[in-house]
């Protein structure tokens, strides 16, 4: 399957990936509305980690042996049969946070603004490539086989 590859040597820490991810996962999918007019506030599913000059974007790795799948109580966390992506069915999720407890990358977050559900990268379902990849100004995030 195609994966999001993170190249930390080129991450400039601008966090545009977070911004575009948030917009992509908003109701309107329009940046100004998403930021200024949506409640509950949409959440980004990618997070830039930074320590001094080192930084990188981090989002779900869609692991082959994904511990979140095993830990999920509700069956919300599942693997998409077509794309191989690990997805959280937000209608099923009850917010027990088992996934957060076991994800070694720390990339699942509580979305507490709206329904309490686990929020994670969905590879921008339906898009040709994830918006973090599309909008990274320095190609520090790329989408590869």
């Amino acid at each position, binding site marked *: 399957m195609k*994966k*999001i*590859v*993170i*190249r*930390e*040597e080129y991450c400039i820490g601008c966090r545009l990936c977070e911004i575009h991810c948030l917009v992509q996962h908003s109701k309107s999918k329009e940046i100004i509305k998403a930021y200024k007019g949506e409640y509950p506030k949409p959440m980004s599913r990618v*997070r830039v*980690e*930074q*320590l001094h000059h*080192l*930084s*990188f974007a*981090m989002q779900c*790795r869609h*692991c*082959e042996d994904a*511990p979140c799948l*095993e*830990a*999920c*109580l*509700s*069956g919300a966390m599942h693997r998409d049969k077509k794309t191989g992506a690990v997805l959280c069915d937000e*209608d*099923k999720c*009850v*917010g*027990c*946070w*088992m*996934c*957060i*407890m*076991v*994800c*070694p*990358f*720390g990339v*699942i*977050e*509580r979305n507490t603004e709206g329904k*309490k559900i686990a929020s994670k990268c969905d590879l921008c379902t339906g898009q040709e490539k994830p918006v973090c990849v599309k909008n990274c100004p320095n190609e520090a995030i790329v989408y*590869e086989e």
Partner: protein
Amino acid sequence: MKNNSKYLIIGNSVAAVACVESIRRTDAEGSITLVSDETYHTYSRPLISYLLGGKIGPERMFYRDNNFYTENNVNAILGKKAVKIDADKKTVVLNDGSELGYEKLMISTGGTPIVPDMPGVKSSGVFTFTTWDDTNNIKEYIEKNKVKKAVVIGGGLIGLKATEALLALDIKVTILELADRILAATFDKKASAIIGSELEKVGCAVITNNTVTKINAAKTGAKNIKEVVLKNKKKIPAEILIVAIGVRPNIEFLKSSGIKTNRGIVVDDKMQSSLKDVYAAGDCCEAKEFLSGLPQVIAIWPSAARQGRIAGNNMAGGTEKYTGNLAKNSVELCGVPTISVGLTDTTKEKALEVIEVYEPENLIYRKVVIRNNKIVGIVFVGNITRAGIYTGLIKDGVDISSFRSHILKEDFGLISLPKEYRKHLVSGAGIEV
């Protein structure tokens, strides 16, 4: 008539389901039979408190698709109980007298709630809380009797999740806990205190160092429960009583089988019991504990899933080993998320060090337990961000010397970890380090 199958699985919860999926990964053909004393399709037991509290409907109890059995070609025998196994004949006898033959047997019968013997325990309105049936019974009783006051015995996770559900139904709850605080088994004092005070804020009474010695029921009618009498003779009105003081492995039926049991079924690293071709996984077995390496019953969902998967793989000819059972729990109580992993009680071992952030006013408590520069446990309350990274560090036994000062900082993340470890972690995960 003996009904033979290649794989026979007793139980229908997560270990059994993981076992089926694991077998099918390598063996698409071999016949699988699954027996369960419950009549339900694959439902998630931990969800019963959400169901009771009305947070989810019955349709959301199922964590696998409706066609799970057919898709995996499983002959599911639901509503029948295994009563005996004969390892020599390689058969299992069910409660209707029928006999099932097997080549490989998996026991994943889970746990049975412990109910202490005391006067009045047989009264109407006394329930345990581990199954869907329990939930239905409780719900029916509450509606029928317009219950407004409840007592929950046991301030552990099940007791508190039951409490939360009852509170959601607008029922006043008193929790009785034998220990000096709630959540004594999973949490330390500070964490317990935060949750305890939150419970009290929503009108729930918590009585510690105490328990029920006697149950008084109405003398007339259906002899419904009326009140409970505590150790100190104090009486508390109770229209329903939930007993949630724990579970023990459901292994009674194995007594005559010759299988080696301790508290639970003793298994080796491959999840095989003392009997050849008989495997066990989940709450009924006693697998190796991760940190100590000693056998221990740890009844938690993710371990059951992993054990079931490994057992299934090995039943189908694999040689996968179980790395050990690391205690871990994630529960949201009164809107406060909590996660505890590994060793959290630091009172018994002097060599343990603790790094913590404690802000009770913000309902935040984060503690990391360290032994020999390695993390062995965490307790996170209120803020559980990136807890899994710590779980990973425990599992991988990473030396934290180089990032110790950073360990509970807000921005602690993968970036804080040594490059070598990051490399190991992400190899194949699509990251260039």
